[in-house]
């Protein structure tokens, strides 16, 4: 077995050891399940029962958690679990052909386990490696820059059951690709710089407020105000406490700046968390690290150890009595929704990642219902710099309403994809010029839930007052089909909806199905009107931001890139989603008949090329 473990009689011992390591604490269920699965490859019914008994949780709850996350398996998936990143940028780089090649060589169908139980190949949502795609995860370790040659090598390694540890190291190499540094990435910062400059918690809070720092996740709430609310809130119950949470569940398609910050600037992030803890009065912080970044766990823990040794974490930080703070890394398991802060908190408590009702807000009732400040990775890194260098310095960068810099993750059609840091206010056209984009047809900014902009908008600026973004910046040149971009995003949301509320659970599926129907040449004006109806329902009635924004990409492309839809629309108002002639094919096969009488003739289908015929026009 590649992991050197078997799913045999020692399962009970594995479960017992992992439970013991976590004190059988039900709030640590996510970590318990992940650590067990790393040993046993999948979570069998028996394992779920044992975990439930050990953690004193209803079995249904444990099964429900295991069933929620994409990276937990309640059915065996093979010793080698290959997941191809399926973001639109991976598609543009040719992932579909490469995955088909891999499946063919392994005699596999996507999503199915090989007969010998050795391997399964499937797709997953964006893995945060768009600057070096097509990418895949094999047993949750990223492999970048896939080529046909690399596919063949991997197939050989799998066939020969070569343990992952013996695979060529360059397969797993992940580049930072930092192309432009500014105030944050270019800062001269040594671990402890911000902590050494600390004054009273109130003074630090005032500086954060004065700096104008706003949340980098995209929503742009004032960080100082958030910390102020959290600091003022009172913990409840016998375990009253405040918490700091770093949201490193970077799941928005096309975003990978947190990956780079955590790979090469972890000290800055951890120092920001420590300062946040100092201000709000928290002794404990969590980094919620997305499951796709599992490979960063050990390096990050090593940084934490170094910081503890240097008295930058732990008890009496830098000799200050009463200043105690430590950080723990919590690993996610493949659920985009956990980037939503209340879903993240649920997940952190070992539950299904379903967004909570608000109010109450996390600042008053967050992790374990205690006051909690949830901040983006980049926000915390910026906070550390402000604490070290002062509010005035920071405020002088950017625009009056958007202080500081923004890190963009640039991918798609350009010469130099990677990480670019700009002062807020930079024009889209400037960004495009810097990364070597040519003949650009569109930019998708802020990811699948963000904004598709056309060339007449390239004079717009990256700033909270114009285009706010978490950092995703995907470029599409004139050869790309914007309909397919939107269709890819529509499917992304089907996969990532938590399913809690009706409009999102059903609406995302109806939207993707309608896009597929159009793609297959069965769409008409009727379908476009249905799409609008679904988008309105999603926007109005969804429980959280995921559903509310799930229709954005389709809405934007329908408005700005309408010809890409028109090309595919049928001339008729309505066309059913199935093909009557195709439906008869099984009968033809069974009866051995293929004469004209065995076919359903639709003459108009032959005459319709789709090209040049506008929907609604008489044919």
């Amino acid at each position, binding site marked *: 077995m590649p992991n050197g473990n078997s799913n045999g009689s020692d399962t009970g011992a594995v479960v017992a050891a992992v439970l013991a390591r976590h004190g059988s604490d039900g709030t640590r269920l996510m970590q318990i399940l992940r650590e067990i699965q790393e040993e046993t490859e999948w979570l069998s019914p028996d394992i779920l029962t044992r975990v439930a008994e050990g953690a004193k949780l209803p079995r249904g709850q444990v099964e429900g958690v295991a069933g929620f996350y994409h990276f937990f398996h309640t059915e065996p998936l093979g010793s080698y679990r290959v997941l191809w990143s399926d973001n639109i940028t991976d598609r543009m780089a040719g992932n579909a052909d490469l995955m088909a090649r891999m499946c063919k060589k392994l005699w596999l169908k996507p999503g199915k386990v090989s007969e010998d139980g050795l391997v399964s190949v499937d797709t997953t949502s964006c893995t945060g490696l768009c600057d070096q795609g097509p990418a895949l995860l094999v047993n949750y370790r990223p492999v970048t820059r896939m080529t046909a040659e690399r596919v063949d090598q991997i197939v050989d390694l799998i066939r020969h059951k070569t343990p992952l540890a013996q695979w060529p190291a360059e397969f797993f190499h992940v580049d930072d690709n930092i192309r432009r540094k500014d105030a944050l990435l270019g800062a001269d910062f040594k671990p402890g710089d911000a902590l050494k400059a600390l004054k009273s918690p109130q003074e630090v809070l005032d500086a954060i407020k004065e700096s104008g720092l706003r949340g980098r996740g995209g929503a742009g709430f004032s960080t100082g105000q958030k910390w102020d609310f959290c600091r003022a809130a009172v913990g409840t119950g016998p375990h009253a406490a405040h918490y700091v949470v770093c949201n490193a569940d970077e799941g928005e398609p096309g975003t990978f700046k947190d990956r780079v910050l955590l790979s090469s600037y972890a000290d800055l992030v951890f120092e920001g968390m420590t300062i946040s803890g100092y201000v709000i009065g928290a002794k404990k912080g969590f980094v919620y690290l997305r499951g796709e970044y599992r490979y960063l766990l050990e390096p990050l823990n090593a940084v934490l150890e170094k910081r503890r040794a240097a008295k930058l974490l732990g008890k009496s930080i830098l000799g200050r009595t009463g200043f105690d703070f430590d950080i723990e890394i919590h690993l996610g398991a493949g659920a985009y929704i956990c980037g939503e802060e209340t879903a993240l908190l649920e997940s952190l408590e070992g539950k299904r990642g379903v967004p909570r009702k608000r109010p109450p807000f996390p600042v008053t009732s967050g992790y374990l219902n205690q006051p909690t400040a949830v901040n983006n990775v980049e926000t915390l890194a910026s906070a550390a710099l402000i604490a070290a260098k002062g509010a005035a310095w920071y405020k002088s960068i950017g625009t009056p309403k958007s202080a500081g810099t923004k890190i963009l993750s640039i991918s798609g059609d350009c010469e130099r994809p990677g990480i670019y840091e700009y002062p807020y206010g930079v024009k889209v056209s400037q960004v495009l010029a810097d990364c070597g984009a040519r003949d650009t047809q569109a930019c998708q900014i802020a990811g699948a839930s963000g904004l598709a902009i056309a060339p007449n908008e390239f004079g717009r600026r990256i700033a909270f007052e114009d285009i706010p973004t978490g950092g995703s910046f995907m470029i599409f040149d004139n050869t790309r089909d914007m309909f397919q971009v939107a269709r890819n995003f529509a499917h992304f949301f089907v996969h990532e909806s938590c399913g809690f509320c009706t409009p999102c659970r*059903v609406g995302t599926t109806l939207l993707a199905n309608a896009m597929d129907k159009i793609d297959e040449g069965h769409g008409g004006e009727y379908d476009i009107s249905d799409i609008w109806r679904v988008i309105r329902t999603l926007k109005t009635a969804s429980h959280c931001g995921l559903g509310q924004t799930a229709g954005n990409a389709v809405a934007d492309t329908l408005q700005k890139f309408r010809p890409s839809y028109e090309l595919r629309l049928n001339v008729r108002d309505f066309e059913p*989603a199935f093909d009557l002639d195709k439906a008869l094919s099984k009968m033809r096969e069974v009866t051995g008949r293929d004469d004209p009488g065995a076919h359903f003739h639709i003459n108009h289908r032959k005459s319709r090329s789709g090209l040049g015929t506008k929907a609604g026009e008489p044919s």
Partner: protein
Amino acid sequence: MSDAKTFFLDEEEIPFEEGQTIIQAALSAGKYIPHLCYHPEFKPHGSCKLCTVRIDSRTVTTEDGQSVKIPGRAAASCTTPAQAGQHVESEVPEIQDLRRTLIQMLLVEGNHYCPSCEKSGKCLLQGLAYDLGVMDPHFPQYFSKREVDASHPDVLLDFNRCILCELCVRASAEVDKKNVFAISGRGHTKHLICNSESGELGDTNLAATDKAANVCPVGVILHKRHGFEVPYGQRRFDKAPISDNPAQYAPVKEQV
């Protein structure tokens, strides 16, 4: 009472007590707001979204003298606290149309064959669909494959009709203290599960008298040997539409 707090529901003044949500206050005052996952005996859930309302829309006059309505925020009235003076729109065309769409979404997601369903005539989904004038499911059917679980001696589960309101989950956890039901999967794969290693209801400790066995608003949790007992014309919603008696959905007042 001079100090009673009130808000406006479709321009009608509704009194409320501190801590009540909009739907609780409305139902207590005899005003019906459509809902499926809300139940007067349980903590609000906010998942079906049928009770969505618009709050505090305003009309402004533009420079050229036109009146323009700026829509207020939409919110589930079961999880939104009532606030003094707020204006809530419920029975307005836009919101009723939204509700019809949500009903249609639920109708295509599951397999709802009303004529052959034992719950017909007393099913909240069916009753609400009739009340809102839903004439068809509109969207393409999923035709989802859902198994039936007949393993329990007294209770049958027909998952075909599950609308994922989680009332049985809540009833079993909060009232029966048994946790017989839970939710697994996510998105379109979200589904109801039973608390047993086999996954079968027969291997749980559910009793036919449990609250969880008697709270299903649709025809998922059915009692065996009790099908079609009430003749057509005499079933619950044959006699009066679902919206006819809002008081039956009003929160149960706690005895002081």
